[in-house]
């Protein structure tokens, strides 16, 4: 990749301090885990950590991660193509629908999918048709794919929409069929977008426990959970978490290697997007069928299930409790998202404009924080919070900070890619007009980055609203978010009571999704 030329040899100190603080915050859990891991006895480590079963679980996790990435790609790439290149591109609401599954919590998706099959399942009761319940590898794969594919979709759609149409035409005039030119010209240029979404989805899948355990697929996070939940042990759990993080670190490293030289600069002043959308012709019905099945599974099933629970028992929840949970949720998710947006802007800006070992490491650190098992992340903040900032402990401020740090990676992705598309020349122009870098940033780059920051902030907000382990550990007593309420009821099999809270998450997230992520392309 053509390194953007830096217009100053000195990295702005203030920015470096902010980004450094973010990096340190994100890596605190790593230090915590190392501290805990050092308490271990070697014999027990060998017995508990390096047992063949853990290798088997690790294999399972990798298998699932690979599967989810393939599945997400198979879902998202055709979807992005349909919604950018064909006559369907004009239907903007389809884009919103395609992004909305992000708002479905994993445990809700899993429970809903499980509730479809079996003798007592929704299908059996509605149609008399009893199909086996989902479960195991394929169940976990489908479940996770159905609410993570929007990450891939968002990225690929942005890339596709920004791709000059004349590249495909050039390939056609050089003798390539539409299919061949899609494979040889379009697909390679989607690789950077795919890589960055694969990273987020991959790290998520690596660490997910909720959906995976409901689907009864034994993954590595299962081993970690077992150590915390079964043995109430933090020492050997830390070892396992570190193993997972080593894997995650490897993935982040490989990713950065692959990404290098793959962020293609547009050549010339090509007009992106372009001419008339392709008519689908006789493929139209196939396309509609595809969308129908996809939206049925990713939105219809979970929302329908929640609706079914809700009306199964005509008991209106205490509306005040619902409202106060919604307010609690937003009072944490919004500041967390805003903070993550600001930190992501600082980290990305440094790493893009002053590329170097330190700034690249700072840009990679959030992914390690994201891959840290949330329970370990929360415990680390308990550990350091009580020792370092006891006056912040058990306040929503620390909770917001914790969520912002844990989810920072989600914001870094979109911000970085927007920034990569913003030529440094614009800032140089501003600086030539006598602006300090800060003014140049605020007046020129800031607004241009706005799109990415908005998208990243929205992502963090949505995921923070669904988050459980960190929220449970760090929230002040008496504080209950929508997610903790859903957890509280579903863990006791009180589905009817859980439904309104879960629906509230979806409905709160919906406008965020439609107004930010769905429109991201337009800028």
């Amino acid at each position, binding site marked *: 990749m*053509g390194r953007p030329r830096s217009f100053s040899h000195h990295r702005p100190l203030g920015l470096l301090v902010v980004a450094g603080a973010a990096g340190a915050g994100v890596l605190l859990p790593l230090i915590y885990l190392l501290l805990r891991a050092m308490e271990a006895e070697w014999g027990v480590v060998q017995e508990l950590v390096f047992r063949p079963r853990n290798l088997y679980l690790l294999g399972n996790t990798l298998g699932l991660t690979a599967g989810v990435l393939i599945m997400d790609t198979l879902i998202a790439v055709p979807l992005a193509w349909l919604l950018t290149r064909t006559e369907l591109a004009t239907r903007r609401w389809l884009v919103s629908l395609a992004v909305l599954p992000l708002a479905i919590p994993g445990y809700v998706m899993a429970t809903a999918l499980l509730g479809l099959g079996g003798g007592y399942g929704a299908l059996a009761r509605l149609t008399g048709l009893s199909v086996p319940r989902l479960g195991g590898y394929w169940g976990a794969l489908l479940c996770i794919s159905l609410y993570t594919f929007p990450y891939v979709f968002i990225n690929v759609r942005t890339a596709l929409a920004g791709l000059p149409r004349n590249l495909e*035409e*050039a390939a056609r*005039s*050089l*003798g390539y069929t*539409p299919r061949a030119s899609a494979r040889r010209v379009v697909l390679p240029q989607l690789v950077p977008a795919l890589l960055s979404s694969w990273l987020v989805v991959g790290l998520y899948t690596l660490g997910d426990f909720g959906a995976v355990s409901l689907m009864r697929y034994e993954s590595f996070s299962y081993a970690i959970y077992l150590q915390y939940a079964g043995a109430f042990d933090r020492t050997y759990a830390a070892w396992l978490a570190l193993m997972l993080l080593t894997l995650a670190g490897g993935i982040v490293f490989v990713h950065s290697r692959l990404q290098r030289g793959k962020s293609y600069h547009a*050549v*010339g002043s090509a007009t992106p997007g372009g001419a008339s959308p392709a008519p689908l012709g006789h493929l139209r019905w196939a396309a509609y069928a595809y969308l129908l099945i996809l939206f049925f599974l990713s939105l219809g099933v979970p929302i329908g299930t929640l609706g079914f629970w809700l009306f199964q028992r005509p008991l209106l929840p205490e509306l005040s409790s619902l409202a106060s949970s919604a307010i609690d949720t937003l009072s944490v998710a919004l500041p967390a998202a805003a903070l993550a947006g600001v930190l992501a802007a600082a980290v990305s800006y440094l790493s893009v404009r002053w590329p170097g070992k330190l700034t690249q490491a700072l840009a990679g650190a959030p992914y390690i924080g994201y891959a840290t098992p949330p329970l370990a992340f929360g415990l680390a903040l308990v550990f350091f919070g009580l020792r370092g900032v006891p006056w912040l402990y058990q306040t929503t401020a620390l909770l917001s900070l914790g969520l912002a740090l844990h989810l920072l990676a989600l914001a870094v992705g979109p911000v970085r890619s927007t920034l990569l598309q913003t030529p440094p020349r614009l800032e140089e122009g501003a600086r030539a007009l006598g602006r300090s870098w800060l003014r140049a940033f605020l007046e020129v780059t800031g607004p241009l980055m706005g799109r990415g920051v908005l998208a990243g902030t929205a992502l963090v907000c949505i995921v923070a609203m669904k988050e459980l382990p960190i929220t449970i550990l760090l929230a002040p007593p008496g504080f209950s978010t929508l997610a903790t309420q859903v957890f509280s009821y579903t863990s006791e099999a009180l589905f009817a009571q859980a439904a309104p809270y879960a629906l509230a998450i979806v409905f709160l997230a919906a406008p965020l999704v439609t107004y930010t992520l769905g429109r991201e392309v337009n800028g």
Partner: protein
Amino acid sequence: MNLLEVLGLQRSFSGGIRAVDDVSFHVDQGESFAIVGPSGCGKTTTLRLIVGFDLPDRGTVLLRKKDITRIPPERRGIGFVFQEHALFPHLSVHGNVAFGLRGLPRSVRRERALELLRLVGLGAERDRQPHQLSGGQQQRVALARALAPGPHIVLLDEPFNSLDAELRDVTRRDVYTLLRQARTASILVTHDQQEAMSFADRLAVMRSGHLEQVGTPSQVYRYPQTVFVARFLGNANVLSAVAHGADAATPVGTVPLTEERRGPVMIALRPEALAVVPNGEWKVVACEYKGDHSLLRIAHEQTTLLARSPAECTVSPGQSVHPTVLGQAVPLQQDTDGNGSPQLQSGRIPARPDR
């Protein structure tokens, strides 16, 4: 022999606008053809219909007598060079050029691509990425890429647009030479009349979807058939006159015509056919110094004319002069749409009681 024949091509877009309206022309083997016209006149659409990126509503495209109107672009054997070059950013320079060489052994592909890169003078840059090249280099790579599969004809869509003035001339000459060497026919689309005239063996002037005139550059320049062509190619003075056989009465006096006419007529008079002598009813408005000559703008009543004078500006603005006609004027056809060119600057046509 006609390599490419375009017959009655027509293409409308939503809103009923006819972008291309009954366009016909042909291109000979090895010939450089140009379509020139203002932006939005339909010339790019014409090119896209020929290569097959778009399909016409009506009309036929024949390539070596074979109807290719409806076959997909990848099976036409027509090269295309885009305004924005459209190099593949994920491939090296060499990879771009070799891209169209399919079904050949690896070594042959390598050799052929390298041969073309050398031809465009970029042999040394073969391993670089497109964005590392200058605009002119990118343009040459784009041309090499289009030439590599040995197309029957190469279409160039405003290829020099993104280059600065100096680079533009050089690149244009290079491209011309390259096409000659490769003995490949070409169609250049441009809005720049200089470019079209210096590039093409024959050119077509296009306006609002139809071709106004087709011919060699000198034919079209010297004998424009319409007001539009006269104005668009060179800065012809367009005057209303009354013809009396071999000459016509005009605001600058009696002018010999290139062909006989009678009655009211519009005529084109090139600036170089007009000179000035001091003292007269006309006033000098401006004098633009052009190095080897000067271009005078003179006015009388509502008529403004361009006249050419020797290198130095011998007259200054405000001075009164008298125009004298040195050459012949070309009688023009009346515009099909009834009103003159929007750029008409020579005053309104006097009302004709006898029409």
